[in-house]
């Protein structure tokens, strides 16, 4: 099946609808794509990401599993080795830790340990992050745990179009991909998506706004607040010194491996770098980027690099999660701090 993108109409849909659309499209394009997970069949997933897929593609291709995350990951490894492209859903990232042994000891290493004889093209999808007043264990952002593992790709979309294009890319990729969906954005906004079956590139970040004075790097749900803040800064006609600056906003999207070439180009241009992520600070992806800046970009820096992150605490239950999550005012303050700290 081929698509002429000019003939395809753009539709305004939510991020979770874009995930669903990509899954439909991926399965239509490739018969080896199978889906497995808890409640993904008739129920269409607890967030409805797999709505209608079992009806369309059948019980043997869209499989409700027993309530056992280890099995989901382990079976997906076996399916992937045997020629299928499993897309497994873990209901919430808080339950993904049961999959670690299969993802780390097998999926990430299968190509290496067999010198390419066997491969493991699976996608492990999970909603992640806070901000939806969910119960305990349903709000964490632990993408860095997977990013540490050689052989994995970790991909996080932050808009419906990127969810669609990156999920197709993840499914087409011949290696394992952890695909983390910011559930706070699942129904945040309807934005245009063209269902043309086209992937977006993995291992590439996306420059969402261009600017010359500061590079703001973020991913996942925080992109929403970053966009609002950056648009205010970039369109401001205020003449106070801190606000006549233009900010380059980069959605990192693939948090492992990181597209350092694009980050380097941006930071060399702006001379300032602020990283914003919801995950805890210590050993977060922000630490990796800040270390990279320190190792490679010091001569270009006009101010110290800054991280604005979640705290090194357990994610508070929802009555207090607002005090953990990154707000627009927090981002504004961090931008001002970087500018004021200029050498």
């Amino acid at each position, binding site marked *: 099946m081929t698509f002429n993108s000019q003939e395809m109409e753009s539709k305004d849909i939510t991020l979770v609808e874009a995930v669903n659309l990509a899954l439909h499209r991926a399965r239509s394009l490739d018969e080896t794509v199978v889906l497995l997970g808890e409640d993904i069949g008739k129920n269409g997933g607890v967030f409805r990401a797999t709505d209608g897929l079992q009806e369309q593609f059948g019980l043997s291709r869209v*499989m409700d599993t027993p309530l056992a995350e280890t099995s989901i990951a*382990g*079976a997906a490894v076996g399916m992937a080795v045997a020629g299928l492209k499993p897309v497994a859903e873990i209901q919430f990232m808080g339950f993904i830790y049961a999959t670690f042994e299969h993802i780390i000891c097998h999926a990430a290493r299968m*190509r290496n*340990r*067999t*010198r*390419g004889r*066997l491969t493991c093209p699976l996608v492990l999808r999970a909603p992640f992050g806070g901000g939806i007043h969910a119960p305990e264990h349903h709000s964490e952002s632990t993408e860095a745990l997977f990013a540490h593992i050689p052989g994995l790709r970790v991909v996080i979309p932050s808009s419906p179009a990127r969810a669609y294009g990156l999920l197709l890319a993840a499914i087409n990729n011949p290696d394992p991909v952890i695909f983390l969906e910011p559930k706070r954005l699942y129904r945040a906004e309807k934005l245009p998506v063209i269902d043309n079956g086209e992937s977006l590139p993995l291992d590439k970040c996306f420059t969402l706004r261009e600017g010359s004075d500061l590079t703001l790097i973020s991913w996942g749900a925080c992109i929403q607040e970053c966009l609002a803040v950056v648009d205010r800064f970039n369109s401001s006609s205020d003449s106070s010194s801190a606000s006549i600056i233009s900010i380059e906003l980069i959605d990192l999207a693939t948090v492992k491996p990181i597209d350092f*070439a694009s980050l380097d180009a941006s930071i060399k241009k702006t001379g300032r770098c602020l990283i914003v992520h919801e995950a805890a600070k210590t050993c977060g992806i922000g630490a990796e980027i800040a270390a990279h800046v320190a190792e490679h970009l010091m001569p270009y820096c006009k101010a110290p690099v800054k991280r604005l992150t979640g705290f090194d605490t357990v994610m508070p239950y929802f009555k207090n999660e607002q005090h953990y999550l990154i707000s627009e005012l927090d981002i504004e303050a961090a931008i001002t701090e970087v500018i004021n700290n200029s050498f």
Partner: protein
Amino acid sequence: MLHNLLVNQLSNQLNNTSAPLQYLTLEGEVACIGNAVQELPEFCRDKEFMLQAYRWMNLTRAFDQKAVALQRTGIIGTYPSSLGQEAISVACGMALEKEDVFVPYYRDHGSYLVRGHLIEHLLLYWGGDERGSAYKPINGSEFDMPICVPIATQASHAVGIASAFKIQQKKQAVLCTLGDGASSKGDFLEALNLAGSWHLPVVFVINNNQWAISVPRHIQSGAPTLAQKGTAAGIPSIQVDGNDFIAMYEALSEALDRARKRKGPMLIEAISYRLSDHTTADDASRYRGQEEVDDAWGKEPIKRLRNYIHQQGMWDEKAEACLQDDCQTQLVKAVEAYQAFEAEQPEAMFDYLYESWPESMDDQVAACSEKYSRNHSC
């Protein structure tokens, strides 16, 4: 025959009154049930087949002894011996059809040999070289899995492969091996559960060699048998004398045939004994008595099969001497072939990480090359 035994096993195993499936006594005589001498399965009349089994079991043991010696002299790394478990391993290899998929743990050297893995490649793996798992087995499936070190995780992969076959409407079966220790892990129990729930073409073999390093069978589980763990998952399960090649092959053939015919999964608990240390890094005398080991030597599988084929007039001392010579000749050649492998270049550690190379790692490859020249310039 097996079906009846299976039914008996299932009804009796909860109160532990059934004996494991056995055709040969410890002396290699045909075992009786009550006063009646058992009828042996058809394949026992096939002389060439029985001798082939015997030869594989001997090659497995000779390989084992050689591998331990190579470890002691620093030519390979830590190695887990399969001494005393040759019947299980060889029966697994022989009961599989080429297109079936074998999903092993790490003590299945005999199955590996029968599947057509070269001895030098087995040594390559245990000699610390990834290329040991790079070769498709000559008599096996392209999907035969590499040796699996993380305990019981392979059971989930076996279920995934079996599920792929079911989805693709293929008629192959999947055979997964594990140890008695692995039967305690959640992965195994989840795999049983999924195999039963999805009615998958997979056979699990627990190689119950009584010891998981230093932990004896009775600490692994309060269940009278390990086989009954399959019953809870709705899986027909059977205990077999794992030191009786005839019983093992019969049970495996039946189980794999059922799987290929879409009759669902099966679990075989093969009762054996680990005559060796856990690995070359272990010293079993720290935790078990010599009396127990001596007793187990009386039940070992090779002597039992040798007595049987002798009694049947299929074998004699001369044939035995030829076989032992032949094993040694094969091993000497294989060790030479193994030692001819040069280690891969250091940069090879990057070669199979991803299919599409992340350019952001270019500097690490360069650093690896620099590190090599710095540390190895002469």
